[in-house]
């Protein structure tokens, strides 16, 4: 072969290779070339299909993500593949794995409890149990937190911010939301009182359990503690003129003691006050309005009369609440102290006398 022939062949091959290279780079799909997704910058490649800008190449079938909003969320600096595991390159298979939030948020969703954490475990919640039974409607992480719009909980836009909780839970629990909005807590929440109880204050967050489950925050065993988190807090209650002794007086009453000792039938907060429909006693529709008390007590007690409304229910031993009770309680207190001091004094004197007169005790 002559030299110029060889040069020609090489030139042609070089051109072919360059052309192939250009084709290769410009049309990866056609040639089966893949894009590796490793850094947040690589997210652009995902948004090529998944973002929804007007005039973008968004494919009709691909789920849409607002890429601008996503950049502002708590996870905005994460690679898409960080959550969408199994997608390491483009193109990706049609079916991708479900997102596993527990990969990072193991504290909230692990099966091991961390007693220091306020949220125990999603897997022990009634939502998770229903889901494991196969009910696809049961709430999972994204049902409450959202998907590509997860903000820090301090952010007003967060679905789990206090101001948005009832709306978030209410997206499934519609009837409860309607009842809640009629209650004093709901009314206060709606008018922007940030201290007012929202769903999670009573039910918990990740560890929401059935009220019949004794470990639930709203079970007969724990509901008094749950309510008292706010209702025994002087700072909060002072602002709204609500007394703070309700939980304390309940725990001292027979209802409270019996409840503490595991007698589940004994009345707890919600037996009398209701739960989603709690109203102050001044409200005519309230279950604890003096007019309605006989009916409320009548849920457990036979034929109660208007007598149940005479005198304070959460009664403190004080002059203001019940003068006679105050006198009786203090009378007994001082009677006991006085009697015991004299009896112990008498016994001590007797023992002193015996030791002093040892051997010549009896004249």
């Amino acid at each position, binding site marked *: 072969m002559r030299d110029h022939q060889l040069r020609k062949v090489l030139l042609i091959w070089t051109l072919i290779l360059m052309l192939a290279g250009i084709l290769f780079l410009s049309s990866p799909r056609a040639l089966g070339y893949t894009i590796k997704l490793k850094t947040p910058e690589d997210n652009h490649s995902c948004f090529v299909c998944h973002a929804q800008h007007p005039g973008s190449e968004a494919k009709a079938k691909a789920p849409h993500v607002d890429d601008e909003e996503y950049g502002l969320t708590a996870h905005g600096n994460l690679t898409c593949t960080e959550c969408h595991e199994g997608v390491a390159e483009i193109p990706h298979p049609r079916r991708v794995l479900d997102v596993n939030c527990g990969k990072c948020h193991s504290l909230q969703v692990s099966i091991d409890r961390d007693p220091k954490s306020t949220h125990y475990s999603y897997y022990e919640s009634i939502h998770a149990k229903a889901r494991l039974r196969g009910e696809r409607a049961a709430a999972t992480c994204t049902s409450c937190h959202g998907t590509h719009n997860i903000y820090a909980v301090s952010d007003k836009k967060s679905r789990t911010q206090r101001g948005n909780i009832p709306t978030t839970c209410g997206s499934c629990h519609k009837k409860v939301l309607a009842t809640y909005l009629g209650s004093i807590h709901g009314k206060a929440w709606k008018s922007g009182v940030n201290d007012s109880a929202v769903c999670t204050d009573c039910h918990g967050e990740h560890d929401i359990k059935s009220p019949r489950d004794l470990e639930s925050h709203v079970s007969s065993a724990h509901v008094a503690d749950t309510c008292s988190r706010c209702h025994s807090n002087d700072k909060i209650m002072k602002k709204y003129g609500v007394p703070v002794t309700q939980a304390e007086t309940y725990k001292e009453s027979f209802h409270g003691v019996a409840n503490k000792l595991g*007698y589940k039938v004994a009345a707890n907060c919600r037996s009398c006050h209701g739960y989603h429909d709690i109203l102050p006693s001044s409200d005519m529709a309230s279950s604890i309005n003096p007019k309605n008390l006989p009916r409320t007590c009548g849920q457990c007690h036979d034929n109660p009369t208007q007598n149940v409304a005479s005198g304070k229910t959460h009664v403190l031993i004080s002059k203001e609440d019940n003068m006679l009770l105050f006198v009786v309680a203090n009378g007994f207190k001082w009677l006991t102290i006085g009697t015991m001091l004299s009896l112990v004094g008498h016994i001590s004197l007797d023992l002193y006398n015996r030791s002093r007169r040892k051997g010549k005790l009896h004249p």
Partner: protein
Amino acid sequence: MSNHTGVMEKKNSQSRPLLPKKTRTCFVLSETARAYPAEETVRLLTTIRAYPGRFHTIEGPESYEIPEKRYFQRFSLVFRIQHILLFSSCILLIATGLPLKFPDLGISSSFFHILGGLQASRILHRAGAVVLIFVGCVHLFYLLFTRDGRKNFMGFLPSFKDVTDVMQNVFYMMGFTNRPPRFDRFSYIEKFDYWAVYWGMVVMIFSGLILWFANLSLALLPKYFLDIAHEAHSDEALLATLAIIIWHFYNVHFNPDRFPMSWTWLTGKISEEEMKKHHPIEYERILKEEHAASGEEPAGIASGEESRNIGDERIKQ
């Protein structure tokens, strides 16, 4: 046993006419458990050093005898049965009731756990209450309709002498005088015990019934009345429990004279020594009555009493 009865016959021939036959017997260490009331058994075992002679009595038949003891019937059978029913029901009531007053203590919840929950303890508490109410009613009948009851009730009535007895006993215990007060059938200590129980029964039974039949009470009484009943029931329970554990247990159990306990609650009997020491006025009265019945002069005792009274007056001056 033949030896034993022989001694008893010998004693019978010499005995004073006052002594009832069944209390007359002799002290033999090996026979003690069979021949003696429980009180003597325990006393013998716990105060052995005080009676060294008892060990030597085994030497020969003559020394089997020690000065015989006379016993007085202090409490009738009806009285003792009332006491047994009362304390059994009280133990049950305190055990099932006190944990309710202190529900925060771990021991309270474990107690209910063992017992089978509040429902079970509730039934037991009410069973105890039935017994207590029964004893209360029996006692009222006993006071009203039996001679024994009326006699005891008169003995229990507080008198001005109790006030002076308290003062004198305090002075005696502090060492200001060497004369202890002389008690009649019931000392102020026993009277306090009796009236504390009397008052406690009234408070506990009435407040307890109000709480037991809460639905009925609520139909008849305002709710704040139930609050008061609840408070009174709980406070009086604590007061009574403390009084029993501190005062009553000291006087009948832990007091060095009595330890481990006075057996009178079981036997109903009290020894002559104890009678002289703790109830001298009653003792002298009984002797006087007995002598009057037999037509003899209780010379020694009468003179002793006189001298004591003179001594008392001297101290008062």
